[in-house]
Protein backbone atom coordinates (compact mmCIF):
# COMPACT_ATOMS: atom_id res chain seq x y z
CA UNK A 1 0.00 0.00 0.00
CA UNK A 2 1.47 3.28 -1.02
CA UNK A 3 0.56 6.68 0.39
CA UNK A 4 -1.36 7.64 -2.77
CA UNK A 5 -3.55 4.54 -2.58
CA UNK A 6 -4.42 5.12 1.07
CA UNK A 7 -5.30 8.74 0.39
CA UNK A 8 -7.52 7.91 -2.57
CA UNK A 9 -9.21 4.91 -0.91
CA UNK A 10 -9.58 6.02 2.70
CA UNK A 11 -8.81 9.69 3.34
CA UNK A 12 -10.67 11.47 0.54
CA UNK A 13 -13.93 9.47 1.03
CA UNK A 14 -14.00 10.28 4.76
CA UNK A 15 -13.41 13.98 4.06
CA UNK A 16 -16.16 13.92 1.42
CA UNK A 17 -18.51 12.26 3.91
CA UNK A 18 -17.75 15.07 6.38
CA UNK A 19 -18.62 17.63 3.69
CA UNK A 20 -21.91 15.83 3.04
CA UNK A 21 -22.77 15.86 6.77
CA UNK A 22 -22.06 19.60 6.85
CA UNK A 23 -24.28 20.00 3.76
CA UNK A 24 -27.13 18.25 5.61
CA UNK A 25 -26.81 20.82 8.42
CA UNK A 26 -26.67 23.58 5.81
CA UNK A 27 -30.00 22.42 4.40
CA UNK A 28 -31.68 21.72 7.78
CA UNK A 29 -30.27 24.51 9.96
CA UNK A 30 -33.12 26.16 11.86
CA UNK A 31 -31.48 29.56 12.12
CA UNK A 32 -29.27 31.59 9.82
CA UNK A 33 -26.05 31.30 11.94
CA UNK A 34 -26.40 27.48 11.77
CA UNK A 35 -26.12 27.66 8.01
CA UNK A 36 -23.10 29.95 8.19
CA UNK A 37 -21.37 27.53 10.60
CA UNK A 38 -22.08 24.63 8.24
CA UNK A 39 -20.73 26.61 5.28
CA UNK A 40 -17.58 27.39 7.26
CA UNK A 41 -17.10 23.69 8.01
CA UNK A 42 -17.61 22.81 4.34
CA UNK A 43 -14.89 25.26 3.27
CA UNK A 44 -12.57 23.91 6.00
CA UNK A 45 -13.17 20.36 4.73
CA UNK A 46 -12.42 21.58 1.22
CA UNK A 47 -9.06 22.84 2.48
CA UNK A 48 -8.34 19.38 3.83
CA UNK A 49 -9.36 17.73 0.54
CA UNK A 50 -7.16 20.10 -1.45
CA UNK A 51 -4.13 19.49 0.77
CA UNK A 52 -4.57 15.69 0.67
CA UNK A 53 -4.83 15.88 -3.12
CA UNK A 54 -1.57 17.87 -3.17
CA UNK A 55 0.12 15.04 -1.25
CA UNK A 56 -1.40 12.28 -3.39
CA UNK A 57 -0.53 13.82 -6.76
CA UNK A 58 2.80 15.40 -5.66
CA UNK A 59 1.61 18.82 -6.86
CA UNK A 60 2.43 21.55 -4.32
CA UNK A 61 0.29 24.10 -6.17
CA UNK A 62 -2.82 22.73 -4.42
CA UNK A 63 -1.56 24.16 -1.11
CA UNK A 64 -2.09 27.62 -2.62
CA UNK A 65 -5.72 26.62 -3.15
CA UNK A 66 -5.91 25.90 0.59
CA UNK A 67 -4.51 29.39 1.33
CA UNK A 68 -7.16 31.06 -0.84
CA UNK A 69 -9.93 28.95 0.70
CA UNK A 70 -8.82 29.95 4.21
CA UNK A 71 -8.91 33.64 3.26
CA UNK A 72 -12.35 33.35 1.64
CA UNK A 73 -13.73 31.41 4.61
CA UNK A 74 -12.58 34.01 7.15
CA UNK A 75 -13.77 37.01 5.13
CA UNK A 76 -17.11 35.34 4.40
CA UNK A 77 -17.78 34.55 8.05
CA UNK A 78 -16.87 38.09 9.14
CA UNK A 79 -19.13 39.54 6.43
CA UNK A 80 -22.03 37.33 7.55
CA UNK A 81 -21.49 38.40 11.18
CA UNK A 82 -21.66 42.08 10.16
CA UNK A 83 -24.81 41.34 8.17
CA UNK A 84 -26.46 39.68 11.18
CA UNK A 85 -25.50 42.70 13.27
CA UNK A 86 -27.15 45.06 10.81
CA UNK A 87 -30.29 43.04 10.19
CA UNK A 88 -31.24 42.55 13.86
CA UNK A 89 -33.30 39.42 14.56
CA UNK A 90 -31.85 36.32 12.94
CA UNK A 91 -33.16 33.60 15.26
Amino acid at each position, binding site marked *: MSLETIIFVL*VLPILSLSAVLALLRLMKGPS*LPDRVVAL*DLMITTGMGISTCYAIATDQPAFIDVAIVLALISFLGTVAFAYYFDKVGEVG
Partner: protein
Amino acid sequence: MMTVTEIVILIFILIGIILVFIAALGTLKFPDVYARMSATSKAATLGVAAIIFAAGIYFHTNISIMTRAGAVIAFLFMTAPVSAHMLARAAYAGGVKLSKKYKVVDELEGRYDKVTHTPSGAQEGPGIETVSLPRDRRA
Protein backbone atom coordinates in the same frame (compact mmCIF):
# COMPACT_ATOMS: atom_id res chain seq x y z
CA MET B 1 6.57 -0.80 1.42
CA MET B 2 6.39 2.58 3.10
CA THR B 3 9.25 4.59 4.44
CA VAL B 4 9.31 6.08 7.94
CA THR B 5 8.55 9.55 6.55
CA GLU B 6 5.45 8.26 4.79
CA ILE B 7 4.25 6.54 7.96
CA VAL B 8 4.61 9.81 9.93
CA ILE B 9 2.73 11.66 7.17
CA LEU B 10 0.00 9.02 7.25
CA ILE B 11 -0.36 9.27 11.04
CA PHE B 12 -0.84 13.05 10.86
CA ILE B 13 -3.35 12.71 8.01
CA LEU B 14 -5.33 10.10 9.97
CA ILE B 15 -5.42 12.35 13.07
CA GLY B 16 -6.64 15.17 10.83
CA ILE B 17 -9.43 13.27 9.11
CA ILE B 18 -10.66 11.79 12.39
CA LEU B 19 -10.91 15.29 13.89
CA VAL B 20 -12.66 16.70 10.81
CA PHE B 21 -15.13 13.82 10.79
CA ILE B 22 -15.88 14.31 14.50
CA ALA B 23 -16.47 18.00 13.80
CA ALA B 24 -18.88 17.16 10.99
CA LEU B 25 -20.79 14.73 13.24
CA GLY B 26 -20.96 17.39 15.96
CA THR B 27 -22.24 19.96 13.49
CA LEU B 28 -25.00 17.56 12.54
CA LYS B 29 -25.97 16.26 16.01
CA PHE B 30 -25.44 19.09 18.52
CA PRO B 31 -28.67 20.79 19.58
CA ASP B 32 -27.50 24.39 19.62
CA VAL B 33 -25.78 26.88 17.33
CA TYR B 34 -23.17 27.67 20.00
CA ALA B 35 -22.29 23.98 20.53
CA ARG B 36 -22.07 23.48 16.78
CA MET B 37 -19.79 26.48 16.54
CA SER B 38 -17.46 24.99 19.16
CA ALA B 39 -17.21 21.76 17.13
CA THR B 40 -16.44 23.65 13.93
CA SER B 41 -13.97 26.16 15.29
CA LYS B 42 -11.92 23.82 17.48
CA ALA B 43 -11.99 20.26 16.12
CA ALA B 44 -12.13 21.08 12.41
CA THR B 45 -9.42 23.74 12.65
CA LEU B 46 -7.03 21.40 14.50
CA GLY B 47 -7.78 18.58 12.05
CA VAL B 48 -7.06 20.66 8.96
CA ALA B 49 -3.94 22.03 10.65
CA ALA B 50 -2.74 18.43 11.16
CA ILE B 51 -3.38 17.64 7.46
CA ILE B 52 -1.47 20.74 6.34
CA PHE B 53 1.37 19.83 8.74
CA ALA B 54 1.51 16.43 7.02
CA ALA B 55 1.78 18.22 3.68
CA GLY B 56 4.62 20.30 5.09
CA ILE B 57 6.45 17.09 6.05
CA TYR B 58 5.76 15.58 2.62
CA PHE B 59 7.27 18.56 0.76
CA HIS B 60 10.21 18.82 3.16
CA THR B 61 12.76 19.05 0.34
CA ASN B 62 11.28 22.38 -0.79
CA ILE B 63 11.69 25.12 1.81
CA SER B 64 9.27 27.57 0.18
CA ILE B 65 6.38 25.11 0.25
CA MET B 66 7.11 24.18 3.87
CA THR B 67 7.02 27.86 4.79
CA ARG B 68 3.74 28.25 2.95
CA ALA B 69 2.23 25.35 4.88
CA GLY B 70 3.37 26.89 8.16
CA ALA B 71 1.85 30.21 7.14
CA VAL B 72 -1.50 28.54 6.43
CA ILE B 73 -1.48 26.90 9.88
CA ALA B 74 -0.65 30.22 11.58
CA PHE B 75 -3.39 32.00 9.60
CA LEU B 76 -5.94 29.32 10.55
CA PHE B 77 -5.06 29.48 14.25
CA MET B 78 -5.31 33.27 14.21
CA THR B 79 -8.58 33.62 12.30
CA ALA B 80 -10.69 30.70 13.59
CA PRO B 81 -11.31 32.11 17.11
CA VAL B 82 -11.96 35.60 15.74
CA SER B 83 -14.59 34.47 13.23
CA ALA B 84 -16.25 32.11 15.73
CA HIS B 85 -16.46 34.88 18.34
CA MET B 86 -17.91 37.39 15.88
CA LEU B 87 -20.50 34.88 14.66
CA ALA B 88 -21.50 33.83 18.19
CA ARG B 89 -21.89 37.46 19.29
CA ALA B 90 -24.00 38.26 16.24
CA ALA B 91 -26.13 35.16 16.84
CA TYR B 92 -26.70 36.06 20.51
CA ALA B 93 -27.58 39.64 19.66
CA GLY B 94 -29.86 38.35 16.92
CA GLY B 95 -31.89 36.38 19.44
CA VAL B 96 -30.76 32.77 18.91
CA LYS B 97 -31.68 30.94 22.12
CA LEU B 98 -29.61 28.39 24.01
CA SER B 99 -30.89 24.84 23.81
CA LYS B 100 -33.18 23.57 26.57
CA LYS B 101 -31.38 20.21 26.49
CA TYR B 102 -28.50 21.59 28.52
CA LYS B 103 -29.05 22.52 32.15
CA VAL B 104 -27.41 25.89 31.58
CA VAL B 105 -28.71 29.24 32.84
CA ASP B 106 -28.35 32.15 30.45
CA GLU B 107 -27.17 34.78 32.92
CA LEU B 108 -27.03 37.51 30.31
CA GLU B 109 -30.76 37.11 29.61
CA GLY B 110 -32.37 40.55 29.69
CA ARG B 111 -29.15 42.30 30.68
CA TYR B 112 -27.55 42.56 27.26
CA ASP B 113 -27.90 45.64 25.11
CA LYS B 114 -28.22 44.14 21.66
CA VAL B 115 -27.49 47.38 19.81
CA THR B 116 -24.34 48.53 21.60
CA HIS B 117 -23.16 45.01 22.58
CA THR B 118 -22.65 45.93 26.24
CA PRO B 119 -24.16 44.36 29.37
CA SER B 120 -26.61 46.96 30.66
CA GLY B 121 -25.84 46.48 34.37
CA ALA B 122 -22.11 46.92 33.86
CA GLN B 123 -21.90 50.57 34.93
CA GLU B 124 -22.91 49.73 38.52
CA GLY B 125 -20.36 46.99 38.99
CA PRO B 126 -16.97 47.89 40.48
CA GLY B 127 -14.09 48.06 38.10
CA ILE B 128 -15.85 46.97 34.93
CA GLU B 129 -15.03 49.24 32.01
CA THR B 130 -17.42 49.27 29.10
CA VAL B 131 -16.76 50.53 25.64
CA SER B 132 -19.63 52.75 24.62
CA LEU B 133 -20.44 52.69 20.96
CA PRO B 134 -22.75 55.26 19.36
CA ARG B 135 -26.41 54.35 19.71
CA ASP B 136 -27.37 55.10 16.12
CA ARG B 137 -24.81 52.67 14.71
CA ARG B 138 -27.47 50.46 13.21
CA ALA B 139 -29.19 53.33 11.33
